[in-house]
């Protein structure tokens, strides 16, 4: 028998999106003041009502205090030591993909995000329409024409403010008002870009819509704002991806996402969050302080949040559902992986208002290295939520003995007919399982990735196919250096 070639060593794949695009950037003057807010609004050529809203939010934010209830620790953020607007310099707004700076197109190619439209054949699955947001601006949105034929609006929020002001005015801030929390107020004052989606009555969106957020400029916060409205009897599935260059300083990302589902509409929102997590010593990385909320406004409407959180130095994020319409339903499927010195405080709120409302929460937290991983959840049954039901399953997996897993579930029920179930487990990756996989030919890292992916399976199966494969690989990469 010949000597078999030694198995390809599992090459540690460090954060592979950590590159910087060399591009001239136009930025707002450093610091945060009313002038900054006015600068951003002027840059975007916004109507007065929006500037007034921004200024109001800014005034409110100045009276608020940084929330301190999260199980995360970080030094105070100096809001004057950052830029609040950064955009690649260009002559005029690109009218089509041909006009986009080739350096930007190259960046997205490197990130594996398709900005070229493939000829869509009727009924061909797998096409994804992308809105690409680079620092503070949207650089391209694909398949717009094809979608417009069905009456679907998919564009940057800036464009929507100009072209569809009535819709924006009606819904922007209706689910997450500036007063909601500190970071939501900050976002309402200085938000720069995001995506806007409107699905008309009775339309099923024929392809996945997605936004790809990229932070490139140094010392810059990204404050995007996404608004998705699904009118009666419509359906949309939406994906969000994010990456940033490797830098030693921490960068703030404070986004707001609002979803509105009208009668019998369904919105599926999936995120694969892979912001730069910092290095193995906890230096650098993104602070991901995000407010995401969906309003099931219509009867029998549905909203689901699926998230795979692998990046960011600190994650503070609770995608929630307000179940207002009778018989509406909400779901939260989450995988949060923390390694090295990452901290994640994430979970959801399910607010049951309508009768017969349903919610499902499945949370999988994986903690390795020195990381801290927290699930925080609220299930609230209002007096009106007759016959409402919630089921929560919350599992934690520990790798090594230096990390932590924490669970803070809160249940408030004011209706005696409502039913709430909560199950939670904490376990370790057992040596038995690792050895069994190794004996079948998997390296220690591959064995760990397989076992962890199995642990997350209930959540991963909720992801659209295009994302599931990527997400699986990402889980393996995120656990680099956690074993051995």
């Amino acid at each position, binding site marked *: 028998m010949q000597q*078999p070639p030694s198995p390809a060593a599992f090459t540690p794949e460090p954060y592979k999106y950590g590159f910087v695009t060399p591009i001239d950037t136009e930025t707002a003057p450093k610091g945060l003041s009313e002038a900054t807010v006015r600068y951003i609004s002027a840059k975007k050529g916004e109507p007065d009502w929006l500037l007034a809203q921004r200024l109001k939010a800014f005034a409110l934010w100045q009276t608020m205090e940084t929330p301190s209830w999260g199980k995360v620790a970080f030094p105070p953020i100096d809001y004057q030591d950052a830029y609040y607007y950064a955009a690649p310099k260009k002559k005029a707004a690109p009218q089509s993909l041909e006009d986009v700076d080739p350096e930007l197109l190259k960046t997205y190619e490197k990130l594996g995000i398709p900005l070229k439209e493939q000829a869509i054949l009727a009924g061909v699955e797998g096409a994804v329409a992308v809105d690409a947001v680079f620092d503070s601006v949207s650089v391209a949105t694909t398949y717009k024409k094809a979608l417009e034929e069905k009456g679907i609006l998919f564009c940057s929020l800036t464009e929507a403010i100009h072209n569809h002001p009535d819709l924006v005015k009606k819904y922007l801030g209706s689910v997450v008002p500036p007063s909601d929390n500190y970071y939501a107020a900050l976002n309402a004052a200085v938000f720069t870009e995001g995506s806007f989606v409107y699905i008309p009555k009775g339309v099923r969106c024929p392809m996945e819509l997605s936004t790809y957020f990229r932070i490139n400029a140094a010392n810059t916060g990204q404050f995007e704002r996404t608004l998705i409205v699904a009118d009666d009897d419509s359906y949309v599935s939406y994906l969000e991806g994010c990456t940033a260059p490797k830098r030693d300083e921490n960068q703030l990302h404070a986004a707001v996402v609002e979803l509105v589902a009208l009668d019998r509409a369904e919105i599926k929102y999936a995120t694969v969050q892979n912001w730069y997590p910092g290095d193995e010593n906890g230096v650098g990385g993104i602070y991901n302080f995000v407010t995401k909320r969906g309003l099931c406004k219509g009867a029998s409407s549905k909203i689901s949040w699926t998230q795979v959180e692998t990046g960011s130095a600190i994650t503070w994020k609770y995608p929630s559902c307000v179940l207002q319409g009778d018989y509406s339903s909400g779901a939260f499927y989450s995988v949060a992986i923390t390694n090295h010195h990452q901290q994640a405080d994430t979970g959801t709120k399910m607010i049951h208002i309508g009768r017969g409302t349903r919610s499902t929460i499945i949370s999988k937290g994986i903690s390795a290295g020195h990381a801290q991983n927290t699930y925080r959840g609220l299930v609230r049954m209002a007096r009106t939520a007759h016959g409402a039901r919630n089921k929560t399953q919350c599992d934690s997996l520990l790798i090594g003995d230096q990390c932590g897993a924490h669970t803070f579930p809160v249940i408030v029920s004011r209706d005696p007919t409502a039913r709430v179930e909560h199950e939670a487990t904490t376990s370790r990756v057992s040596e038995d399982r690792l050895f069994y996989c*190794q*004996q079948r030919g998997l390296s220690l890292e591959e*064995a760990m990735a397989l076992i962890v992916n*199995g642990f997350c399976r209930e959540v991963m199966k909720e992801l659209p196919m295009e994302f599931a494969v990527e997400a699986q690989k990402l889980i393996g990469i995120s656990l680099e250096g956690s074993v051995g």
Partner: protein
Amino acid sequence: MLEIKNLSAAIDGKEILKGLSLSLPKGQVHAIMGPNGAGKSTLSYVLAGRAGYTVTGGSVTLNGQDLLAMAPHERAAAGVFLAFQYPVEIPGVTTMNFLKTALNAVRAARGEKALDVMQMLKLLRAKAKAIGMDEDMLKRPVNVGFSGGEKKRCEVLQMAVLEPRLCILDETDSGLDIDALRIVADGVNALRDANRSMLVITHYQRLLDYIKPDRVHVLAGGRIERSGGPELALELEEKGYGQASAGAQA
């Protein structure tokens, strides 16, 4: 094929194997029998490279390769397969996905091309059918909720798919009723061939009624105390380990 020379190994500082030597030629099936605590399972884990077992002396080669210098997954790629006494559950990972990942890992290590989804599906279905296993089992998570018999059959399926050079069957008969035992033994027998060696580790002679060994070794006190033909197993069954060992010393 497999050459074990003077192998000593300890766990938690306690020496379990004390100078064990064994030679298993290509294509042969050898049985290792012995009383509880003789070091049978330790031998199988040391050969597979489980963490926690320290080799304190001796050597093990497989086709001339130094097995002890390899990581567990490298040994698997080199052709070592251990059928576990207690197969491990892996929640959320389907048997199909597990086998696909394992086979492609082993193929990559051997410099062979990965099989695509369709090729893999075809192969797994054929192998499952050959050992009389219900195809639906491939869709279930590895060993989760399997009966004792199903678990052992799943081990045989993995063996059939990975096509190892050396199969170590650790107490494969434990927890099986006679019908399940027969099915598992049939599966193992179907995998006997001129290029594959098998080490059948068992406490009872019963299994050897179904998997006929070429040689039988008695493991006691951390070393091979006696070796003989298949008739040795019958003698052990009749006299018990104490007497048979005493006979060896006489």
